[in-house]
């Protein structure tokens, strides 16, 4: 049974980290969230009876935890701005300026945050957590057809928002 748990952690650790990091955009915070999510879910699960269910559940929990952390950060940022502090939250704490598409990514994250909740969730689980449509359907408790609709509409909307953002900047 312990082997199952070790195998699940080993298989998912990078995906959980990748998902949380791309939401909170802070490596250390993403590592902390990853750790907390594994410990919480695996303690609650007790025994891993069904790998097909536990893995989507862990990834969905990580998504929720990262989103909550992100909202907390945004609230702190708003407070800081109110009292006139200059904080660069909202951008990665370890800026990925070395990446060729850093600016595009930054705009994409902002556009992603404006999407409808379900579209944002489906896209994050599909692209950030690299979950299959079947896994996402299980995690979101909706049909695979609905997942595909959310992904489809989310991508179209994201493209539109990015295009609108570019036009504004020009």
């Amino acid at each position, binding site marked *: 049974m*312990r082997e199952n748990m070790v195998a699940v*952690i080993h298989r998912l650790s990078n995906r959980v*980290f990748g998902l949380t990091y791309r939401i909170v955009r802070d490596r250390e915070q993403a590592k902390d969230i990853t*750790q907390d999510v594994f410990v919480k879910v695996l303690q609650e699960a007790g025994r891993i009876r069904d790998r097909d269910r536990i893995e989507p559940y862990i990834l969905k929990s990580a998504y929720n935890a990262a989103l909550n952390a992100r909202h907390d950060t945004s609230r702190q940022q708003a407070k800081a701005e109110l009292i006139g502090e200059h904080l660069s939250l909202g951008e990665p704490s370890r800026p*990925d300026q070395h*990446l060729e598409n850093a600016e595009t990514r930054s705009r994409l994250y902002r556009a992603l945050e404006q999407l409808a909740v379900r579209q944002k969730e489906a896209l994050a689980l599909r692209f*950030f957590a690299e979950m299959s*449509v079947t896994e996402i359907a299980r995690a979101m408790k909706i049909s695979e057809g609905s997942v595909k609709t959310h992904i489809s509409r989310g*991508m179209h909307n994201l493209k539109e928002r990015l295009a609108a953002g570019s036009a504004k900047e020009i």
Partner: protein
Amino acid sequence: MRCEQYFEILPLYVSGDLTGNERAGLEQHLSECARCRAELDKLSEVARVLAPSDDDTLSEVEKLRLENDILRRLVCEGKTESVPRRSSVTSLIVRIAVAAAIFIVGFSVRPLLPVNNQTQPVTRATLTDLAEHGSDFTAGMRFSKQGFRLIARGKSGLIN
């Protein structure tokens, strides 16, 4: 399917979530429709930015450390059935028993085994010599092909 329907499912083509038939139909349509091809290019760019980069993954060292931390916490906070947890007293007794067993086996098996040229077995005489060296030596168990043996090492090297 009509052009609008193909247009709608373009993101699923990019994400690789279409069935074989859907994909074949869309590819046929793309060869005939410039509007859908242009949209596909834009969506591919969005998917490229959404895809993981090197920065989004853990290094091997980070991954190992993170996984160890998770397992350690699961054991320490031990509320799960999956990771067996011993009480500290039981754990101590087991450790003492194992250490004692290693010493006993080492001393009883050693005389039956061939002597290594570089590392001599410790005898009463050498132990007396060791006493004369004061604290300038260390002693411990070594496991080799010949089995466990007690060894001692002084400042000038191995003491015979």
